[in-house]
């Protein structure tokens, strides 16, 4: 067709800005940094090539595996916390009445606060001496349940997950509402005429129509929580005794506290590899469900 050249020209022209900025600023530094991973480097002295030693040390370090496990807790908490809660709320909040708008804004509000402030505030909520959680438990007579939430290793990983969920329900809610609003109303009407309502309509009409969006949300959720850093860094710094160490804090501490740039770079390369694996796995799982669901 005579259009092919035109299409090609258009494709190149329109993809160029994104690809250019993104490649130079995001992709190049990653490879640069994985390259540092082959060196023993304190950041001030001359780097010394040591081959795969850093990478092997990362894999052998039990703290790395603990950090990974902790990160997976956050991933699970986000995927099974943020997404369903946001979806549930989105179903309840489709109207534009004042009240619903108020609730929607409220749910989004945590997003406007910077993550540092979120960490700070929740640090207070969990404070063992005057924190709200413990005061509340005492008030309803459950004194035995009070804990030092952030320093007791048996609960602190779950405790730090809550603020992260809390922080990010808002954007998913908005994404879902937008997607729902985008479902052509003929389909809904048709479903209604067919006698589908309530749960049935939800399962057979609404959810399948939103499936693309839900998938995107899950990918965002996984990638976001694998990078989780700020809130935990402010609340616990990865402590005590590295019990809330996440991959990102583990990398940060090794790079900027212990000054092992090479080792830190090796960790971040590992983070990227692990994240990719997780995303691929989640995609495969979702594809399967997609087929079962029979949509498209």
């Amino acid at each position: 067709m005579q259009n092919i050249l035109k299409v090609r020209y258009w494709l190149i022209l329109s993809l160029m800005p994104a690809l250019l900025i993104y490649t130079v600023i995001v992709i190049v530094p990653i490879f640069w940094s994985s390259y540092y991973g082959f060196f023993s480097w304190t950041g001030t002295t001359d780097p010394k090539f040591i081959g795969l030693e850093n990478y092997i040390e990362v894999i052998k370090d039990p703290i790395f595996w603990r950090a990974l496990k902790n990160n997976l807790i956050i991933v699970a908490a986000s995927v099974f916390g943020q997404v369903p809660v946001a979806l549930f709320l989105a179903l309840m909040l489709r109207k534009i009445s004042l009240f619903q708008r108020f609730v929607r804004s409220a749910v989004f509000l945590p997003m406007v606060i910077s993550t540092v402030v979120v960490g700070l505030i929740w640090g207070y909520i969990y404070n063992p001496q005057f924190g709200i959680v413990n005061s509340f438990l005492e008030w309803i007579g459950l004194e035995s349940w009070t804990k030092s939430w952030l320093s007791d290793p048996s609960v602190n990983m779950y405790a730090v997950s809550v603020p992260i969920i809390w922080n990010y329900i808002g954007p998913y809610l908005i994404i879902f509402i937008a997607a729902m609003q985008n479902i052509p109303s003929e389909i809904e009407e048709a479903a209604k005429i067919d006698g589908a309502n309530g749960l049935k309509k939800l399962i057979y009409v609404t959810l399948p129509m939103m499936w693309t969006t839900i998938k995107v949300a899950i990918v965002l959720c996984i990638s976001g929580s694998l990078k989780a850093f700020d809130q935990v860094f402010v609340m616990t710094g990865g402590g005590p005794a590295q019990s809330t160490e996440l991959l990102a804090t583990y990398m940060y501490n090794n790079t900027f506290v212990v000054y092992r740039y090479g080792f830190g770079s090796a960790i971040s390369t590992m983070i990227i590899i692990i994240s990719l694996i997780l995303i691929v796995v989640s995609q495969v799982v979702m594809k399967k469900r997609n087929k079962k669901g029979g949509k498209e």
Partner: protein
Amino acid sequence: MKKCIVFIILFIMMILAACGNDDSTNANQNNNGEENTDSSTVTIWHNFAGDDLRAKTVRDLIEKFDEENEDIQVEAEAIPVDGYRQRISTVAAAQELPDVFFTYAGSFTERFYEGDLIQPITSLINENTEWADSFLPTALEAYQYGENEDIFSAPVGMSSTSYLFYNKSLFDKYQLEVPKTWDDFLDVINTLNEQEVTPLALGNKAPWVAQSTTFGAIADRVTGTEWFMDAVAQEDASFTDPVFIEALEYFKQLVDAGAYPEGANSMDNTQAEQYFLQENAAMMINGSWTISSFGSTVSEDQLNNIGVTVIPSIPEGEGKANTITGGPGGGFVLNSNAEGEVKDAALDLIYALSNDEAQKAIAESDSMVMYDVEIDQDKVSTLYYEAFELVRSVEFAPVYDLHLSSGAGEAINNGLQEIMLDGDVEAVANKLQQAQENAQNEE
């Protein structure tokens, strides 16, 4: 349509260009020595960004220097303390440090020396012998590196880290004596616990606190200073030695006796200080920074109610009793790229920030210095004066993380938190030993 696109793109470009424009001038003032050789512009980075007395004092000193020296232009930049290490480390890795920058004693500075990023200030020392002699013992040695024993910085502060603060009225109320020995100390802790008062406030969220304020002093009393220095050098001593295990056991005794409040590992230093001030805790072991922060936030009455002394002695130990862990604090260093006029100007600036006058000004802003100064008692808080006098009557013991490698410092910090969580003492010793050994081997 095309016009529309062009317009939009142009519009965006214009906005962005407008943003970019006014910094093109600033870009030229880039903070590295090479670009500034044509004039004597000196760039200096420091972390005195805050509103506390000391930060204001140092900023004033820099400003004064700038005003008094018309031929020298000072480009100062204050970076928040929280981000300072990260900022400096990143910039150092890219070899773009400013002419003069503030550094912390210990492994932080050592890295710059090893990477040849800083140069000695020996000429200053030689030209001003009286000044150099007025530093307290070990002050300049902390910044001495290499075969020629060159000196790279003159500290502008002291980190004395292990004062025992106690609440006088609480001690009166429960008829307690200020503990002199370890056994007294444990008795006091038990009594306070029976009265449901927390014995010791501690904010160990940043995990260096327990190490720097409490453990270092205990360990020095148990092992003696010499053993520690040997262990640091990994010569004839190892952190797995029984004597070090014993030191850890002493710390564990405090934990087991319930000296610390629940959740001490998730409180920050300020929260712990407030916990102590509000009489929830009767004692607190902390460094000289506490004196500065009390000095600026607490009423005179409350200050008079706080006593300060040294950590109790451990008679069975090898070390001395009457010591405080401490040593030189941070100082300013000179970029190895600085030469000619810039270097001269930079040296002048470093001198102006650490000379007699500067040390006195800093000391009078309620913070300790490693320099022999007379201070005006009226200009400082009572608690500070008491501590100032105390420091002069005791000897210094080494602060652990000033001497350990950065990896080993992390190991002991995390290890102490582990002990507070009921961790195994020997495992902690092993990790510490391993980290220090690795660091020594790498050198």
